[in-house]
């Protein structure tokens, strides 16, 4: 049971007690502090003493103070709150969500220890009736503990948490907080965001808003001044002029901060062995690059690492940069041509595919009567040039190839009649029709092109390929179904290029030939990039990048179906896919090298280097209040709940009516004060009269 006030603002009236105190002090000052140069003359005056009324004045003073205090208390409407022992003093149990930033910038200096200390403080005040959730976030947010009333559980999760390699993103974290708040059962709801509030983490776009009555508290553990040295990237230049595959590695370094670094140590490691160390000078808030001597690239995939070491660097994660120097990728192409075609008729195709290393194409040419199933098995892409679908095992292998993710490119020619394709209708996008001869009008041209299609996206830029210069004297009509994609049309509206997705693979059909008989396309500049682009698309080839970034998801679509795979993260964590898994994607969360291999193999079939997002190294921050404003509830405190509380308090006070008794006592005291005051002033007047009488007498 405790004394509570219905209108505590009236307690401000207690300050009125200061008035008699001040008056009293001023009087005392006046009485005691008249400094006078000399009492030489005053001492000679016969009458000099004054009466002291301190004790009686004190009584009066106490009466006045007490009366004022009681008046203020009465107006504050006091009552005894018997329910306050059970209810939480500030409005009942709490639902607390702690959003703890674990992006790699939190590893700067002692930020992490300050952040965990702040989180510890936030959960320290929880009672048994409260509930808490610890959400760790970087580019994604996960609830590490809770919602739970067991503080020990939250504390244990907090002790296990460490800053990772991810970049800060506030939207996912606040989205989780919003969901938790929406499901919360406790009347008081609070979200605490502990972060360094990096500008890179929020671009000012709209964030999930918390619903009332949830409140947001921010704890900024950022530093006012920062210094950071980092490796922002690596350029690998390949050189195979002397028959030896060599690579030149150039590292890009950056310095964030107001002080330069005159002597940073930069090292290059290949497969875990330090190859070369160099010194670099980094200007304040500037960048530089360091080029290492060329090294011979081994046959297998090479793991490279560049490290920079400087004296005042407090953020270690971005000092290391991993990359992979991979073997040249090869795509096998099988060109199947008509048995009766003269030698050299299809020379343009292998020539066009013989150039380039991204990827390198290995071309095999076969006549349709001599092609074998083994030829198809070795190929990633089959080009059927002016021939129909091969029958028998070869045809079956081609179907299997396409369904398994391989590619089939068909150039319709003299022998690509409707009948020749009748047995493979499931592969051809639509129906192959008759030959359209436009030689009378000196040929047609390409009318439209879907440059947004992945097969033609390399021509998306302006002046990236002139398709209109080629003249098409003859082509076959093609009638694709609604589910097939039309990539290009001739100027008369006939389909020039269409695609059908079959299984994991792709079938592309070109309405004319690639040999220069039906058109002059092979002698146009656009021929080479067009052929390479079509073959790359059909092969499902994607360039293997030297490194990926934390937060990306690696799609393993090029891995053949039906094989069990294992991915091993840098920390040793394994992800397995069985033969039946169709969705094979690997979220990259750690910095280092991921290994992907067959389930039963020891050696890695693919190595992926993963680096943290360099944007996170920009340690500039925004004001936490901006986030509070963007996230705080639109509405005010729940009016219904507040009204209920007020009503019940008023009810309790009304039943007790303590103020009435207090007021009566205050009035009695004031009456007593009046009496005492009158008596004192009468007595004072009498004293003065007596004193003057003594003077006269003297």
């Amino acid at each position, binding site marked *: 049971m405790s004394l509570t006030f219905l209108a505590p603002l009236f307690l401000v009236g207690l300050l009125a007690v200061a008035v008699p105190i001040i008056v009293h002090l001023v009087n005392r000052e*006046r009485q005691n502090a008249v400094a006078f140069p000399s009492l030489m*003359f005053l001492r000679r005056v016969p*009458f*000099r003493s*004054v009466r002291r009324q301190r004790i009686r004045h004190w009584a009066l003073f106490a009466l006045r103070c007490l009366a004022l205090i009681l008046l203020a208390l009465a107006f504050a409407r006091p009552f005894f709150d018997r329910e306050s022992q059970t209810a939480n003093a500030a409005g009942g149990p709490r639902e607390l969500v702690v959003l703890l930033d674990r992006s790699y910038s939190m590893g700067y200096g002692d930020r992490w220890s300050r952040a965990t200390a702040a989180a510890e403080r936030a959960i320290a005040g929880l009672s048994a009736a409260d509930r808490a959730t610890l959400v760790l976030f970087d580019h994604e947010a996960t609830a590490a503990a809770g919602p739970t009333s067991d503080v020990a559980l939250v504390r244990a999760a907090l002790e296990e948490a460490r800053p990772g390699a991810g970049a800060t993103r506030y939207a996912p974290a606040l989205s989780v907080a919003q969901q938790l708040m929406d499901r919360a059962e406790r009347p008081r709801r609070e979200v605490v965001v502990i972060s360094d509030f990096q500008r890179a983490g929020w671009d000012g776009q709209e964030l999930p808003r918390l619903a009332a009555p949830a409140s947001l508290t921010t704890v900024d553990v950022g530093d006012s001044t920062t210094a950071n040295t980092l490796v922002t990237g690596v350029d690998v230049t390949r050189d195979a002029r002397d028959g030896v595959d060599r690579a030149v590695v150039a590292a890009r370094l950056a310095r964030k901060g107001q002080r330069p670094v005159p002597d940073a140590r930069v090292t290059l490691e290949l497969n875990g062995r330090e190859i070369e160390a160099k010194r670099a000078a980094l200007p304040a808030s500037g960048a530089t690059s360091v080029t290492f001597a060329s090294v011979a690239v081994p046959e297998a995939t090479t793991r490279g690492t560049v490290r920079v070491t400087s004296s005042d660097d407090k953020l270690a994660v971005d000092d290391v940069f991993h990359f992979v120097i991979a073997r040249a990728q090869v795509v096998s192409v099988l060109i199947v041509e008509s048995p009766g075609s003269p030698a050299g008729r299809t020379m343009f195709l292998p020539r066009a595919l013989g150039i380039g290393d991204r990827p390198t194409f290995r071309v095999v040419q076969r006549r349709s009567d001599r092609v074998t199933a083994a030829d198809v098995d070795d190929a990633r892409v089959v080009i059927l040039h002016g021939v129909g679908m091969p029958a028998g095992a070869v045809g079956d292998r081609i179907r299997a190839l396409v369904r398994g993710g391989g590619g089939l490119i068909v150039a319709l020619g003299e022998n690509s009649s409707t009948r020749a394709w009748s047995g493979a209708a499931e592969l051809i996008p639509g129906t192959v029709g008759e030959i359209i001869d436009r030689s009378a009008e000196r040929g047609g041209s390409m009318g439209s092109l879907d440059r947004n299609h992945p097969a033609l996206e390399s021509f998306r830029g302006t002046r990236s390929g002139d398709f209109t210069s080629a003249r098409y004297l003859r082509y076959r009509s093609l009638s694709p179904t609604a589910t097939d994609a039309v990539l290009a049309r001739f100027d008369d509206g006939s389909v020039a290029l269409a695609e059908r997705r079959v299984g994991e693979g792709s079938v592309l059909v070109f309405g004319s030939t690639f040999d220069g008989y039906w058109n002059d396309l092979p002698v146009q500049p656009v021929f080479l990039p067009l052929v390479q682009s079509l073959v790359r698309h059909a092969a499902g080839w994607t360039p293997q990048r030297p490194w990926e970034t934390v937060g990306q998801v690696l799609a393993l679509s090029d891995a053949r179906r039906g094989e069990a795979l294992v991915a091993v993260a840098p920390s040793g964590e394994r992800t397995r896919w069985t033969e039946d898994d169709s969705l094979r994607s690997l979220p990259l969360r750690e910095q280092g090298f991921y290994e992907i291999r067959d389930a039963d193999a020891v050696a890695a079939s693919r190595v992926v280097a993963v680096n943290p997002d360099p944007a996170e190294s920009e340690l500039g921050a925004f004001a936490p209040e901006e986030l509070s404003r963007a996230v705080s509830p639109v509405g005010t405190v729940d009016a219904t709940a507040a009204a209920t509380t007020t009503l019940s308090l008023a009810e309790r006070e009304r039943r007790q009516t303590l103020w009435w008794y207090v007021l009566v006592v205050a009035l009695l005291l004031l009456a007593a004060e009046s009496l005492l005051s009158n008596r004192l002033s009468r007595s004072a007047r009498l004293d003065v009269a007596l004193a003057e009488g003594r003077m006269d007498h003297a």
Partner: protein
Amino acid sequence: MHIGRTTGVAAGTSFIDPKALAKIDSLELLARTVVEGFINGLHRSPNLGASMDFAEHRAYMPGDDLRRIDWRLFGRSDRYFVKEFEADTNTNLLLLLDVSASMGFASSGISKLQYAKYLASCLGYFSSRQRDRVGLATFENTIVDYVPPAAKHLPIVLQTIARAKPEGQSNIDAALRAVAEHARRRQIVVIISDLYDEPERVVRAVARLRNRGNDLIVLQVLDPAELELPFDHAANFEDMETGEAIPVVPSLLREQYRTLVQEHTATLARLMREERIDYALFNTAQPLDHALFAYLADRQRLSRTR
């Protein structure tokens, strides 16, 4: 003599409120303001002595003695120059400044010590301008600071005056004995104090100095509150020097107090006159230059009659 007298004051002389003077930080500037102001207001220069040794020429200013204009120079330059002479007597002026705690009293505006400081600065400056040697002794029950009189000691004197703080109990008898030991040469001694002591003791102490051949000037400085006791409320009155306190109802003893103070100053004036000692009472509420001018004019008149 009372400060209320304005004998010899020329029309147009501006009197400066002590509160306004308090805003001037530099005592030298203050002294120059006051002294030059009232010199310009006089019809004739109040210089007390003639000179024999030529020092320098300076431009003629209204009020200068026409006889001192150098006509030979006028014949050559067609401009008026006045000949300046070294003081004939090379008189020493020793300022004795009471810095006891009671001098710190101020009922309003400036304290007695401040007023006394202005007085001492003005007299020192004025005297130095006449090429007298100026010295200073600040005292309470003994000498606190002593600057021997010398022609170039005015800046030190002014600095020492500026530094003085009201502390300790005054004992003019003991202080003047100590001064007598320091000052062996005949000199003009100006005592500036509130003279809280029996008149007989004060005069006896001052006369002892005079008997050694010194020319004595006693300037008593009092606050109007000391003269009038204008307090309304009953209070404890505390002696600033001894710390002793007695409860007092001022309204009941004001008249008697005033009578006692007037008797005291009258006795002092009478005894001083008998001993041929110059005495003047300064009220800190009165303009400083007014009081100083009145006193100096009076002194000049008296010197002619002596």
